[in-house]
């Protein structure tokens, strides 16, 4: 009985750990001159990774300069990541193609 209880506890721990890990990353694909998904909601502490699948270079640039996430020019298949610690709504755009806009909601 004790063994089973321990096993269950371990399983629960693993599940929690897996959930926690899943909540810690988010992905945005850049394709066809658009951020996909255009709006992504994540928990605080989540690392968001943007990957450019376009043949055009793009950037990920926060609208609010104080939020200070700003990638270099991302060529095809290049990635950029940023970890969002504080809750809030973070709007960003591509500084090369400013009609491309996206949002990260942290809550």
């Amino acid at each position, binding site marked *: 009985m004790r063994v089973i209880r321990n096993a269950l506890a371990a399983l629960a721990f693993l599940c929690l750990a897996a959930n926690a890990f899943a909540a810690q990353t988010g992905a945005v694909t850049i394709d*066809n*001159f*658009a951020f996909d998904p255009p709006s992504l909601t994540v928990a605080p502490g989540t690392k968001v990774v943007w990957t450019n699948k*376009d*043949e*055009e*270079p793009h*950037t990920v640039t926060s*609208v609010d300069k104080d939020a200070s996430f*700003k990638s*270099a*020019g991302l*060529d*095809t298949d290049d990635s950029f990541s940023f970890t969002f610690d504080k809750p809030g709504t973070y*709007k960003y*755009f591509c*500084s*090369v*193609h*400013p*009609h491309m*806009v996206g949002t990260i909601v942290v809550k």
Partner: protein
Amino acid sequence: MDTINSATQTRRGLLKCMAWGGTGILWTVSGGVPKGLGLDGSALAAEAGGFSFVQVSDTHIGFKAEVNPDPAGTLQVALGKIAALPTAPAMIVHTGDVTHLSKPEEFATAADLMKGARLDIHYVPGEHDVIGDDGKGFFERFGAKGATPGGWYSWDQGGVHFVALVNVLGFTPGTGGTLGAAQLEWLEGDLKGKSASMPVVVLAHVPLWPIYPQWGWATGDAEKAFASLKRFGSVTVLNGHIHQVVQKVEGNVTFRTAMSTAFPQPAAGQAPSPGPMKVPADKLRTVLGVRRIDYAPATGLAVADTTLA
């Protein structure tokens, strides 16, 4: 022979000119109103007192996608066309996107290649030239002597006033190009002392009229610039950015975008995105090109676009 003999105003001269123009356009601007060239070639604008110059645009050095893995090679073809002109142009104007990703090595390669033209070159930046550093790398290498701190400048040449504008900095979400209050104020002052009969050529990367704002093919505050330009009899706006020839005439202002020397883009709204347009390798040079502009006081400006084919 596939070059313009700008000193020849005969029918043969015109035919040569049109051959250089290939499938491109051939227009003149007289008193601000463009018209097609007559068959007698009388509008060819390289009489005594005139001069010619060449527009090169969107060289995208560093681009390596499938449609053109060698933009340095196609730029060299373009420069070869210019070098083969029987009368050397007075200068080249490069309307931006010199590089693809604003990398130091791309700027270096582009500068080396352009130097090979052995001509005076006037640059304006494209948005691909100012990624990540607000244009620092670009202006260090290609900035004009005597330019304003913002990088824009003007000069007079052969009776024409040239204005080189920067509309790729200060992008804000959802907009296209932006000139900004400081530049608009400078432009007003720059034009103030000029005679209204002096032709004005305006250079900028992003089109100064709304071709397709959904793709960023527009400059939000350009209208304010034209308030300063409206008293002039002839205004010619030369843009790049969209990698194809589009033109429009509004009053005394003629707008023209240019072909790229690197890769084509789809016509406005004709594809899901404005990304590079795929064409068969043996067709690539038919959609790349350069532009020659002749000016003579009596006839005004004559423009010929030619492909690299």
